[in-house]
């Protein structure tokens, strides 16, 4: 499949799959609480309704931030499914989240302030682990290119089990589910109202919902990347990861932000960094014996003569 075809498939199928997943989420959650739950298409009804409602704003510019949030989330997913650079995907994802936070700050209400600040803290919590995930994938496949990572013959999860666990942990934060629904909980009416989304209504709120759908598909796509050499297994595990997130959402209560931040960094340090440490210790012998022609990127070749030129000067 060509790059453009994949992007178009993502743009069209992304919200449909994401919306259905959101509908299943609500239905499965309801079943876990021995309720019947809403129809699977409920998220689509919600967004259609929100699209027709009046749009009340504090400052008109807050809506433009959300528009850019939506566009950047779509851009992030498009980069990902086009198979481009993983680091670029991470930066685009961060930029999208920053626009969301800026929109909430722009609305200058105490509740959206709390939500925005907590969202920033959550970004601090998940960002190290996400970067470590990219580094771990680079260390096994010697490429940041998602196309190369996906077509790599090894099952990445076997080499990166710690990073996979850590990534699942950050997924909980990224989905803003309990125990990490700090920034916009659906249940904290008294203390948060709706946190970061408090001041958004009508069409803008619908855009936030659609952005979440795209984000869900993109993040589950990243889970798939760990199992990309066996596609059927990858799809199954992505769906299982989604089920796990729903289960955790229903089992755990909301954590304090301090605990969320500490635990996320602890997980990143132990599972993420630990995995990379083991990987680098195991990989030292084969990488030196092999010629660096097809393995090392250009930057390493460029650095090598520079250091050898410097060393004699220091000896003198």
């Amino acid at each position, binding site marked *: 499949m060509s790059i453009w075809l994949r992007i178009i498939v993502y743009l069209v199928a992304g919200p449909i799959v994401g919306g259905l997943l959101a509908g299943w989420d609500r239905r499965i959650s*309801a079943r876990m609480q021995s309720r019947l*739950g809403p129809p699977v298409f*409920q998220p689509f009804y*919600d967004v*259609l309704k929100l699209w027709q409602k*009046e749009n009340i704003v504090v400052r008109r510019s807050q809506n433009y931030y959300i528009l850019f949030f939506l566009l950047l989330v779509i851009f992030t997913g498009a980069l990902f499914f086009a198979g481009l650079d993983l680091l670029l995907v991470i930066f685009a994802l961060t930029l999208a989240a920053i626009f969301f936070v800026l929109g909430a700050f722009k609305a200058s209400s105490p509740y959206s302030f709390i939500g925005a600040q907590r969202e920033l803290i959550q970004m601090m919590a998940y960002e190290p682990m996400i970067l470590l995930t990219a580094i771990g994938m680079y260390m096994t496949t010697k490429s940041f290119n998602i196309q190369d990572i996906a077509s790599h013959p090894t099952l990445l999860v076997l080499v990166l089990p710690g990073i996979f666990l850590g990534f699942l942990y950050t997924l909980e934060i990224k989905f803003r589910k309990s125990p990490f629904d700090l920034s916009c909980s659906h249940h904290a009416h008294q203390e948060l109202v*709706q946190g970061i989304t*408090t001041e958004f209504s009508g069409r803008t709120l619908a855009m936030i919902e659609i952005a979440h759908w795209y984000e869900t598909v993109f993040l589950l796509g990243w889970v798939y990347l760990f199992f990309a050499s066996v596609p059927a297994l990858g799809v199954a595990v992505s769906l299982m990861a989604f089920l796990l997130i729903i289960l955790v959402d229903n089992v755990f209560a909301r954590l304090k932000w301090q605990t969320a931040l500490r635990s996320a960094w602890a997980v990143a340090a132990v599972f993420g960094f630990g995995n990379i440490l083991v990987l680098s210790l195991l990989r030292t012998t084969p990488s030196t014996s092999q010629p660096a022609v097809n393995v090392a990127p250009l930057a390493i070749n460029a650095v090598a003569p520079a250091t050898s030129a410097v060393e004699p000067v220091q000896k003198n």
Partner: protein
Amino acid sequence: MSSFSKSPWIIHYDASSCNGCDIETLACLTPLFDVERLGVVNTGNPKHADIFLVTGAVNEQSNPVIRNIYEQMPEPKVVVAVGACASTGGIFKDCYNVSGGVDSVIPVDVYVPGCAARPEAIIDGVVQALAALEKKQKARS
């Protein structure tokens, strides 16, 4: 049938209720009645809500709050007065600080009788409010 009647989001406010109607309102969300199967979400945010459920009579304290919440809700919006007190002032009607039912402050679309109003009656009130919501949306567009 448009998407309005499929996804009514509710904000619930206790004007000066004895908590009887509030307990019955929240009972609608429990597994026994489970209004979420109709797409109802109990949101704590007036800017996300379509239906304003008020319980209890209006007194001097709750009067500005009700007005404030109502004005923050985006159009189209409907108001449901739940219980005898919210509908007419009930047994508190003649109190010196009570101005009467919710309709003494904001326009009310549906009155739900009862003391306390039963969950079935509240759900029925919400369903009738949906018809009013549809009508208001048609008038808007």
